[in-house]
């Protein structure tokens, strides 16, 4: 469903809703996968991102997103210069991600490291600032960033979904969508839970404290 405010918006730093605002949102979501500004980031640009990204400030926008700047933050213009002071060591590469499946022309793969955690995500900017994360740590996912999202990896134990759903309900958090994927039977399960309200950090910590949860992060709502 198209929202009127998607049409009259977003408020953003130019010049391109797909190559700048969308790119920034992809950086913001990658940041969420390590819970803050990464110490190191490897950013592989594909397709039109690789070809015309520099002229559109795609590099600045992704780096700025990794540093927590939103699409309307004028600091995006100087994000590459201020990254070092913010503790972000970034590296851009051009790549071709076309493998068996067709990849959207505006796609990036971002590998982020913070503390002892490393995570890789792949996402695309679909136009008008809309984005889609298609892969996190080799798990196929669909994250649009228009909800607050909890992502977690858990051992494949019975009742895990009910337990987590219960914890969210106890905190008055309504689930919008829930997707569960796993690479093989009995292997780790990857859960993406989109929720209607911002989950407090205590809820994330309570989920992390479950002994069968390997890791859990909150991804901010970045659009909509």
């Amino acid at each position, binding site marked *: 469903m198209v929202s*009127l405010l998607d*049409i009259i918006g977003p*408020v953003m730093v*130019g*010049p391109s*809703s797909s190559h700048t605002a969308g790119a920034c949102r992809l950086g913001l979501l990658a940041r969420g996968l390590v819970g803050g500004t990464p110490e190191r980031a490897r950013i592989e640009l594909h397709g039109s991102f690789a070809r015309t990204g520099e*002229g*559109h400030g795609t590099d600045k926008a992704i780096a700025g997103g990794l540093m927590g700047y939103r699409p309307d933050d004028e600091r995006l213009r100087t994000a590459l210069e201020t990254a070092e002071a913010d503790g972000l060591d970034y590296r851009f590469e051009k790549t071709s991600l076309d493998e068996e499946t067709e990849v959207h022309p505006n796609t990036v793969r971002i590998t982020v490291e913070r503390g002892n955690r490393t995570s890789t995500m792949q996402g695309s900017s679909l*136009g008008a600032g809309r984005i889609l994360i298609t892969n996190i740590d080799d798990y196929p996912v669909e994250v649009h960033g228009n909800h607050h999202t909890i992502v977690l990896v858990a051992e494949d134990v019975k009742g895990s979904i009910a337990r987590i759903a219960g914890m969210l309900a106890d905190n008055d958090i309504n689930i919008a969508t829930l997707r569960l994927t796993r690479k093989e039977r009995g292997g780790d399960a990857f859960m993406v839970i989109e929720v209607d309200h911002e989950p407090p950090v205590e809820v994330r910590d309570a989920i992390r404290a479950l002994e069968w949860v390997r890791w859990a992060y909150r991804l901010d709502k970045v659009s909509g």
Partner: protein
Amino acid sequence: MFTNLLDAVHAAEARNVRLADVALEAEAKDQGRPIAEIRAALRRALEVMRGAIELGMVGDLKSNSGLVGGDAAKLRTGPAGPLAGTPFRDVLARALAVQEVNAAMGVIVAAPTAGGAGVLPAVLTGLALAKGIDDERLVDALATAGLIGAVVAERASLSGAEGGCQAETGAAAGMAAGAATEMLGGTPTQAYHAVALAQQGTLGLVCDPLGGLVELPCVFRNATASAIALAAIEMALAGITFAIPADEVIDTMGEIGRAMDVRYRETAGGGLAATPTGRRLARERLVQIKKS
């Protein structure tokens, strides 16, 4: 939100209200948000639009590549043409201003996209200034424009990569024409004809920016699309109607976009981008961006 503009026109006229009212009501219902909150977001968008116009009018901005910038100021202070002193010239200047700010990585409102962001603020604020229209009616006009854009998004496309420039500055012209017609006292039916009159004038327009950058011709396309919107507004308010309904004109834009060769859809493979000068400028400027 509506997927058919004529339904919105009928809904408004049945209750003797404006398209802006049915747009705000539909958005409030869809998103579960109070109308006051939606109006506040639109008011903020209006402020950002005005900020971009003001910044761009000064004329000291340069885009990333240096290809565009400083032309809005020429319309403000340069030699007079036949339209000097009219809202027409002011609207053109405003459209260039916003798009020059966009190209310089300034803050704008993507409405509907960043590449077409100059048309709506230029037409609405330019005509509001000329006709003494207050901010609350400008907020109403943004709601009407959002409704029109949402219908275009549903029925056709708002992406140059999908539908060419007709889906960006063309859609923006339709949104601005319909919204301004209502803002200036036109009926929902007149606004409907204004959308059709504007959108028909941009059918087939390709997206062919030099080097794939949102700069040239994008900055000037925003000015010329604003001119088309003004023509549509003038005609619709004079009672002129367009025989093909706006919804069908929008569908036609989508059909043409789908048939458009990929060279003309934001790939810099055809059109002005592929001219000898276009290729040379893009090469030179991309080298400059890498150095800076």
